[in-house]
Structure formats: C-alpha cells, structure tokens
C-alpha cells in the first residue's frame, strides 16, 4: 500500500519532475516518466501529482514550466495524458466497482469540485488556485494549451464517458472556450465556477449530480 509521507517534500518532488523532463532525451521517455509517477502514487494519491504540477505552475520559471508543458503536448497527441481515476458521476454505494473514469489533471480537478457530495468535493477556494496553476503551467507551451483546450471541448461533448454531469460538462466547455479564446487562467476558472452555479444547476436541487435511476 502506498502512503503519503507525513511531510512530503513537495518542492523537491517538483524540481525532480522538472529535472526528469529536461534530462530524458526522448518524448516517449518523458511521457513514461509522468505515467510512472502517477502509477507509483496510485489513484488515491493522484492529487499529490496535481499538487506537484500546480507547484511547478506557480513557482517554476518559464523554461521549467515549458519543459513539462512540452511533455504534455506529446502526451495529448498520443492520448496518454497522465490521469487519475474517479468514480463516474452516478457512482455510489451499490454501483459496480469498476464504474470509474480516467481523468486528466484539469478534468480531475473540475470533476472533484463539481461532484455531487459536497462533503467530499474540492472547495472552490482550493479549486481555483490549483486550476489556475495547472493552466499557467500548460500555457507555457502554446501548443499544449491549444491541444488541451481541444481535449476539454471534446470531453464536454462526450456524455457517454460518464465522468461528468451535464452541468459540469457545460461548465468545462465554458472554461475551455474562455481559455482557448485567450482568457487568463483566473478568468477561465471563474467561468467554470460561474457556469456551475447558474440557475440550471441550482434548479436541480439536491438531486443534482445524482443518478437518474438508482443502481440495482
């Protein structure tokens, strides 16, 4: 079983990840590095990977951010964005154990914040700085930003994946459209939060995010 250190060395981990992205010669190896780190952490600790990326986005110089963002370009092109698994939006007690979805860094944060159980959801105060830092990291490479926006829009158009509620997909679309249109990470993440809090979402009341049919 993998457990987080009582006092993880976040900054050291972030620097080590950047070092690897620069030192490895091949894009394939760099993508493999991200995947190996995610595999080593496991799904329960995937947020630790997000925190490391956010730390690089917040405190990395441009070259460090660009090195990681460049790896994300190759990962996006080859469909291997480092991902973590979360329960599908109708997932809950009694549902099939395999009913989870693989989500990339930004989508994971969005699904985490938008999840139906407010007790387990990522608070907006935590979501926005983390999302901004991830977007700032990706934006260090314009191609990474463009490809990531295209992926987010494709996710927003895909109701069958089951990873996000309809409302969350609309919010994701608002984020992606703003971000691809040149909005800052602050503005784009605010669009996501605003879209989630529109009357359409509130109007569903406590059933918002619940499965339409109870699992058998």
């Amino acid at each position, binding site marked *: 079983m993998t457990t987080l250190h009582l006092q993880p*060395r976040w900054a050291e981990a972030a620097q080590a990840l950047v070092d*690897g992205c620069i030192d490895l010669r091949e894009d394939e190896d760099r993508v493999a590095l991200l995947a190996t780190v995610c595999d080593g*952490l496991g799904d329960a600790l995937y947020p630790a990977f997000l925190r490391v990326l956010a730390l690089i986005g*917040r*405190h990395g110089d441009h070259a460090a951010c660009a090195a990681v963002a460049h790896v994300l370009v190759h990962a996006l092109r080859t469909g291997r964005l480092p991902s973590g698994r979360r329960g599908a939006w109708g997932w809950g007690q009694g549902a099939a154990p395999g009913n989870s979805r693989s989500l990339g860094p930004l989508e994971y944060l969005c699904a985490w914040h938008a999840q139906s159980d407010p007790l387990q959801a990522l*608070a907006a105060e935590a979501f926005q700085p983390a999302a901004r830092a991830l977007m700032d990291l990706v934006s260090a490479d314009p191609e990474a930003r463009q490809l990531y926006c295209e992926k987010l829009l494709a996710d927003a158009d895909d109701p069958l994946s089951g990873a996000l509620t309809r409302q969350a997909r609309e919010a994701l679309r608002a984020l992606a459209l703003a971000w691809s249109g040149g909005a800052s990470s602050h503005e784009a993440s605010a669009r996501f939060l605003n879209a989630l809090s529109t009357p359409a979402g509130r109007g569903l009341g406590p059933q918002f995010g619940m499965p339409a049919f109870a699992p058998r």
Partner: protein
Amino acid sequence: MIRTSAFAPPALGGPPPRARHAEAAASSAWFDDDPAAAGLRIGCDVDTASRGLGVAEHARRVLSCLCQHDDPRR
C-alpha cells in the same frame, strides 16, 4: 500539513459523518498554501547527480519525496 490517515479510502459502507467532515477538510488541504514554498523557485538547471538517469530512476526520485510503499505482510 496533509496527514496520510485523512486520505485513507472510506471503509465499506462509508465513513461515519464526523469522519466524512474530516475527509472534506482534507480534500481542500491537498492544495493548502505551503509556507515552505514562499520564495521558492523551480528552475531548469539539472544538477549533476540527476543527469543521465533512466525513466525509472527519475520517477523514483520524484516518488521518494512524496510517498512510501508499506508492505502489508509486515
């Protein structure tokens, strides 16, 4: 500081209400400001010890800063 125990997966049937509140607080704690990060600069000057390593070794360097594997047989 993030405590590992706060992130343990819920037991079968779900945790009791008080534990669920603790989980919620812990969820947001993943992205708490880290005072140690003030003034931090992450650059791209790879030190000598980190050069020429393979994928597995670079990954091990990252993971060793974050987590440990506990052998359940112990």
